[in-house]
């Protein structure tokens, strides 16, 4: 009785496993990494064919967290869709807020007040820091060190306290509005930001000592999961994955939106194209975000206008007919929203272009021929947020 499973049938798997097993070689093992696996962070599932511990083929299976966000856009009014943007990517929701709101503003031809632009920059960059800190802790956790995530959450909590003041939430922000933001930054919030920046600067060397310089970690991430420039182009990777491959492509610079052209910051790149490159790019980006925030807080003091334009459109706004594509630089890469309006209260079509989706797609090729442990190191270095992939 017990041995009846030894052959193929009842436990042979679902549709995707059967699809995958069609091309299976001899003497290999097909394993399912996920959807309940500690290092796929949520419900990503990757079917892997391994020979020993070497990966021959990998095929991510998506859709376990699919909520049909794009359909939801077609049944809600333009304003009602904003809270959805907080749920697409819980890591960096303000980038999605911005991408969507920006697309609608493009459709309507709205110019946002200067103060609102500064507030958007500050909150978005703070949110980028929270996202990178979350990634950092979780990535090191994947690589087997338990402690760093606690340190990163120490800092992240302070950021959340700051962001909580204007946004009233701690994770899934729905803060931006067409024409500005929901609430102004108060003095206490500015104070907290000013106190946070030097504190975080002093914490970064500790991160470096504990993790970045650690020889075990370096050996784990160096030369692992190569995603070079050409692969990035073919798969449409963006963000730290692309910058880790040496291409200084950052939408804040290359397709400047909002007031990013006013700030002095660098775009860190690494030529190595491996997990270590992506890791170092993100660590360097945190410092650059601090620089932007510093300058933006200064600029905010004498910015004109309010936090939202006077007579901002109501949720039941009717943008004129047309199409608009708006992309912003999220923590994971290019966050794009393509909105089509027919001139009604309800969008005609909303397409969400998520960076993790394209970044993960490159994983299958990058993981080929590496060890199972390297797959974890590669996967983590892509900084995946599953709800963003499945939308």
């Amino acid at each position, binding site marked *: 009785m017990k041995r009846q499973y030894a052959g193929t049938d009842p436990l042979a798997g679902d549709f995707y496993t059967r699809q995958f097993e069609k091309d299976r070689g001899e003497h290999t*093992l097909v394993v399912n990494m996920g959807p309940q696996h500690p290092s796929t962070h949520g419900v990503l599932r990757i079917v892997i064919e391994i020979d020993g511990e070497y990966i021959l083929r990998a095929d991510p299976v998506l859709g376990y967290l699919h909520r049909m966000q794009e359909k939801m856009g077609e049944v809600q009014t333009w304003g009602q869709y904003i809270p959805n943007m907080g749920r697409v990517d819980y890591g960096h929701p303000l980038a999605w807020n911005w991408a969507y709101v920006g697309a609608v503003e493009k459709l309507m031809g709205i110019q946002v007040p200067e103060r609102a632009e500064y507030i958007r920059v500050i909150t978005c960059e703070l949110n980028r820091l929270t996202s990178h800190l979350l990634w950092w802790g979780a990535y*090191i956790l994947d690589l087997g060190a338990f*402690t760093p995530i606690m340190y990163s959450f120490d800092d992240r909590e302070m950021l959340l306290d700051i962001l909580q003041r204007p946004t009233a939430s701690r994770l899934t922000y729905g803060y931006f509005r067409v024409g500005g933001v929901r609430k102004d930054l108060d003095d206490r919030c500015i104070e907290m930001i000013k106190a946070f920046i030097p504190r975080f600067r002093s914490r970064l060397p500790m991160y470096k000592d504990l993790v970045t310089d650690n020889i075990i970690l370096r*050996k784990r991430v160096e030369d692992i999961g190569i995603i070079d420039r050409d692969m990035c182009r073919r798969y449409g990777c963006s963000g730290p994955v692309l910058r880790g491959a040496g291409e200084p492509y950052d939408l804040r610079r290359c397709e400047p939106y909002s007031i990013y052209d006013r700030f002095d910051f660098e775009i860190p790149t690494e030529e190595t194209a491996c997990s270590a490159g992506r890791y170092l790019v993100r660590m360097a980006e945190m410092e650059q975000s601090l620089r932007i925030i510093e300058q933006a807080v200064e600029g905010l003091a004498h910015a004109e206008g309010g936090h939202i334009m006077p007579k901002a459109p109501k949720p039941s706004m009717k943008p004129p007919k047309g199409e608009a594509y708006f992309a912003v630089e999220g923590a994971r890469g290019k966050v794009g929203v393509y909105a089509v309006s027919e001139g009604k209260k309800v969008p005609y079509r909303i397409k969400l272009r998520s960076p993790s989706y394209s970044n993960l797609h490159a994983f299958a090729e990058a993981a080929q021929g590496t060890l199972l442990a390297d797959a974890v190191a590669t996967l983590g270095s892509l900084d995946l947020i599953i709800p963003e992939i499945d939308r």
Partner: protein
Amino acid sequence: MMNAIDVHMLIRLIIAVVAAMAWVGINALVLVYCERKFAGHIQRRPGPFEVGPHGILQPLADGLKLMGKQLFRPAGADAFLFWLAPMLSLLPVLLLFLPIPYGPMLTAMNVSLGILLILAFSSLNVLALLLAGWSSNNKWGILGAARAVSQSVAYEIPLLLSVLAVTFMTGSFNLSAISTSQGAWPWQWNLMAQPLAFFIYLVSAFGETNRAPFDLAEAESELTAGFHTEYSSMGFGLFFMAEYAYMVVVCSVCTVLFLGGFRGPVADGWWWFLAKTYALLFLMIWVRWTYPRVRFDQLLNINWKWLLPLAVFNLLATAFVMKL
């Protein structure tokens, strides 16, 4: 029929084994508590705090919870081997505590080949891990078992060689003899004479006990839980206890070999032994909560390319010096 000495020995053995069982249990409880507290404070949080004052009863509560859980065996698992494995993992541990000299007079069995006995029986653990991984009918389990076997086999060799270097110096396999051959003060310990062997022993000990950064057999972010993926309740509990027991054994042996055992300033006794053993255990815990995990090929490379040549070199050098 049975002469008086045999009966005497038997009673002594039984008492010793029972004592060892208690010792294993107590150690597991204390160590789990210490580890969680220590980890908590490293991470700047209090650790267990709710059950009892400062959470001191937490390990007991956890143990009760483990016992209360359902013993579950996955479909297609080989029932006999599946349940044999955890028992096989824990049982030999009891033997390992017998030859360890806790104090000048506090040894369960003063075996003349004590260190060999420990090394021999501790190897049985590999078999348990292999059986557990194999019989679970789980792919992650098999991967974990394969890792566990190659890791244990590899790390046993430098461990053995570094132990041999010490026995070359003392000329005895008897742990009591090794202890007494060292002086009371730190500079009279074997640590000073054999720093390289101590280092090799320590690194191999991490490998042998599957502790981070060498916890590849159960690397939870890669293999979910490795060989014990499918174990629940006390099946898992036994593996858990065995892991902590092996930690205690490895650290005890290290104390005896390199840190003077029960010898210490002012007065010799079990207190010195315990203090040193627990200091080593804390080092293991500290390391676990600091480092990321190494990769599997790196783990083996460290062994075959670094530890083994160093251990052989150390052994030859020791032999050479002793002969002089």
